[in-house]
Structure formats: C-alpha cells, structure tokens
C-alpha cells in the first residue's frame, strides 16, 4: 500500500553542523505534510508543517522543503545542537476515505556529537 518512508534510519552529525533528514512519499495527491520530533519516553512534538501549494517553509532553525516532482520531503536543521538528538518522523495527511489521520514513516534517529 502507499506509505510515507524515510531514506536513512540513523543520522549522526557534529554539533554545530547542519542536518538534513529526508522523506519520500508515494501519494502524489497528498496535500499536507508535518515533521515531528520525538524524544525518548515522550509524545511526538510538532516541528513544522507545509502544504502542497508551497515548496519551502522556514521556522526557527528549521526549514522544510517539498519537491512534488519527485515526491520528496526534507527537514533541514541549522547549527544542530545536542538537544536536537531525537527521532524525527515525517507524516502526510491521510487520503481516500480517511483524510483526517496522519500516515507516519518509521523515523530517523538523529544523534548529535559534541
């Protein structure tokens, strides 16, 4: 079935470097995407979202890029800090008969080395 997936299960970066986490989606009709950060033992924390009528959206230290041509989503974290260490999930809004729920990928674990 169609699903959201991630290219890399783990990512290790040096503190201060920029991080890029990638995500592929398979439904070209998807119109809304969200990135979440999940720390151990906690619920997912909203980071940033983007709608399909946009290519780029920026937040504080984060940027989400959407490439609809290749159905690719990425999260860029500038000047990565130890506190950014977590699992990051991309999600797309459900489609077909179920358009309210989110469909999540399996996540990428980001480890920041001091």
């Amino acid at each position, binding site marked *: 079935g169609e699903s959201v997936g991630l290219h890399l299960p783990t990512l290790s970066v040096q503190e201060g470097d920029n991080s890029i986490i990638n995500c592929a989606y398979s439904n070209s009709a998807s119109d809304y995407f969200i990135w*979440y950060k999940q720390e151990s033992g906690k*619920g997912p924390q*909203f980071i940033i979202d983007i709608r399909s009528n946009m290519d780029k959206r920026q937040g504080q230290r984060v940027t989400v890029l959407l490439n609809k041509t290749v159905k690719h989503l990425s999260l860029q974290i500038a000047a990565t800090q130890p506190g950014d260490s977590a699992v990051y*999930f991309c999600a797309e809004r459900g489609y077909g008969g*179920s358009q309210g*729920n989110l469909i999540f990928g399996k*996540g990428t674990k980001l480890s920041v080395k001091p």
Partner: protein
Amino acid sequence: GAGVSQSPSNKVTEKGKDVELRCDPISGHTALYWYRQSLGQGLEFLIYFQGNSAPDKSGLPSDRFSAERTGGSVSTLTIQRTQQEDSAVYLCASSLGEDTAQYFGPGTRLTVL
C-alpha cells in the same frame, strides 16, 4: 496553555482484562485522534473524531478496540480482553481541524502480561 494530557501514563494489566485510556485534548480543538506506537516503530492510526461527525474507525485493529468522545472533549479508548500484542504506547492528539497540525499528548504505555 495546557497541552494534550493522557492518563494513566503507565498501565500494566493481565491478558484478558479490559483497559480504559483517557485523553484530554487542547481546549477548543474539534478533532481528536488516537494512534498506537509499538517499540521502535512509527505511529499507527487507530481512530479519529471530528466535531459531531461519526468517528473514522478505519484504523482499529479489531472489534476489541473502541473509543468514545463525550461532549466533544474528553475521549476514552477501551481495549477489551487485552492480548500481549496490544502492548504499545497509545498516543492521543488533537487539532483545530482535520487539516491542521496535530498536537500529541505524552502517551500511555500499556503492558499486557
């Protein structure tokens, strides 16, 4: 302001028992969602409520699972005759509408012995 809250934070039960998990959404949010997360996995959609509409139950894994939302606010997820494979973290989220950001609670960790 207050975020989504869930209770209990942890629940240990014996196989075959029924359990109830509670979710208090953010005030004013009309949409409420339940997800399940198994160890090291992504989130699996279970059910969602939008306003007064009939809930979307398409993600419920079996008829042992049910949920209700009273007064458009608090929701309870009930699992009857629990099985070991039901062990997971159950997460609740709420949003202003079904096409806006969902905000998650801390989850309830359910362990079925």
